[in-house]
């Protein structure tokens, strides 16, 4: 095995990096891949909560990079998915406790054991970001249809380019199809215009994401949820499948009539 190392980053906070990491991780594990999730948001760890694994943490990333325990000891196995592992980070230390070299060394060590290693990056472009991207082969930039989020994504893509990361993919999260249709929200064309990188996901804003987050069970694969289906499509695109993008627009009464008459 030789893992692909993917960093999930955004620049701006609150666009859904951690949610995306958790969902892609679970999705890949559902497709029978051996996956490790590394939380690098030291001091503000969340990934364990989204996966419902907080109470199983024994050691953390800082213990591993400082050489107190081997990484295998710090890995937390997911309760439902045999092949999904989390390497949580410390709640008490801060970002300066892990340096880029240490994380790169760890990734190289873990590479042989997994199919995918996902790194959840902290917000911002400071040291935490530099550490998180150091070992990655691919970067996934998460953004929202909002000018500030797109602007920050643009900046992050520039920073990734400066660090010689050329393989960059985009996920647009929390799209509200109704607002897009009314012209109150940026649409995909506006976003592509500025960012011009390959998009592998368009995920709608969905209440089920919040409820499932609170339960510690990512929404991916939940057929009742549009976001769940969108995340599963992202996973399939990462696995190399060619999946068309969903039509996120609500199936309005008007459109149904149009379709009945073969107009749409």
């Amino acid at each position, binding site marked *: 095995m030789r893992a692909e190392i993917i960093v999930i980053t955004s620049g701006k906070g609150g666009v859904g990096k951690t949610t995306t990491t958790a969902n892609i991780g679970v999705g890949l594990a559902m497709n029978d891949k051996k996956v490790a999730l590394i939380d690098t948001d030291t001091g503000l760890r969340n990934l364990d909560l989204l996966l419902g694994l907080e109470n199983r943490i024994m050691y953390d990333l800082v213990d591993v990079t400082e050489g107190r325990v081997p990484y295998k000891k710090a890995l937390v196995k997911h309760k439902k998915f045999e092949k999904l592992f989390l390497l949580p980070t410390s709640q008490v230390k801060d970002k300066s406790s892990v340096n880029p070299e240490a994380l790169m060394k760890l990734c190289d060590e873990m590479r042989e054991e997994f199919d995918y290693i996902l790194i959840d990056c902290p917000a911002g472009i400071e040291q935490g970001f530099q550490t998180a991207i150091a070992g990655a082969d691919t970067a996934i930039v998460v953004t929202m249809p909002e000018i500030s989020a797109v602007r920050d994504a643009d900046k992050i893509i*520039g920073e990734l380019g*400066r660090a010689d990361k050329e393989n960059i993919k985009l996920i647009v999260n929390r799209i509200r199809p109704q607002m897009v249709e009314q012209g109150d929200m940026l649409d995909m064309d506006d976003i592509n215009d500025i960012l011009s990188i390959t998009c592998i996901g368009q995920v709608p804003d969905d209440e089920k994401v919040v409820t499932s987050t609170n339960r510690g069970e990512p929404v991916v694969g939940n057929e009742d949820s549009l976001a769940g289906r969108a995340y599963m499509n992202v996973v399939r695109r990462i696995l190399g499948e060619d999946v068309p993008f969903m039509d996120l627009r609500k199936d309005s009464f008007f459109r149904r009539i149009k379709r009945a008459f073969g107009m749409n």
Partner: protein
Amino acid sequence: MSEDIVKIKGIKQGLLLIFASDSKFDEIEENIQKKLSLGFFTRGTPVYIHPEDLPKDDAETLKKIFAKYGLICKIENPENEIREIKQEEPQREEVSFAKPEVKVEGEKVEEMMVVNKTLRGGQEIRTKASVLVCGNVNPGAQIIAGGSIDIRGKCLGVVHAGAFGNQDAVIIADRLLPTQIRIANLVARAPDEGDETEKPERASIKDGQIVIEPIER
């Protein structure tokens, strides 16, 4: 062997053309035309011809051919330039971009900087030279140039031409929609409710004002 008529050598400043000693100019011209039509050269790469290698008229003809394909051809010994560039280098901030070119005309030094990528938010170019961008200039990006600015793409950032007082500097872009446009000591900003055109436009100073007009290219 037709391949050997023109040899291309990669040097620090760009490409150096070396001609076989017994070749005729017709053959050289044909060979270069062929290479150009195959897209052998990357746009914006400076091409050098050693002045002792070809008669002046022939070299000028080649220069015109290269210009047609958007390449800058220089008839000079590239060795002479290394020193020029070294002198200028400390003033440059961005080092990751293509090496600037230096053209010597009497005492006046004119330069051009080529950027072969999209400038993203937060990136800045600051140079005494003119700037050619093959890509977009995104919002949040900044170009401050002593000379003119030519953008082969969309311009949405902040652009400042003639930043050291040159009132003749111009700014050209395929889509000129900058957050702010500055030439020499004048500033203009995009109207809050803008009417957008699909055409390339040029901004320049006329009667003490920044004027934007459509152009053909």
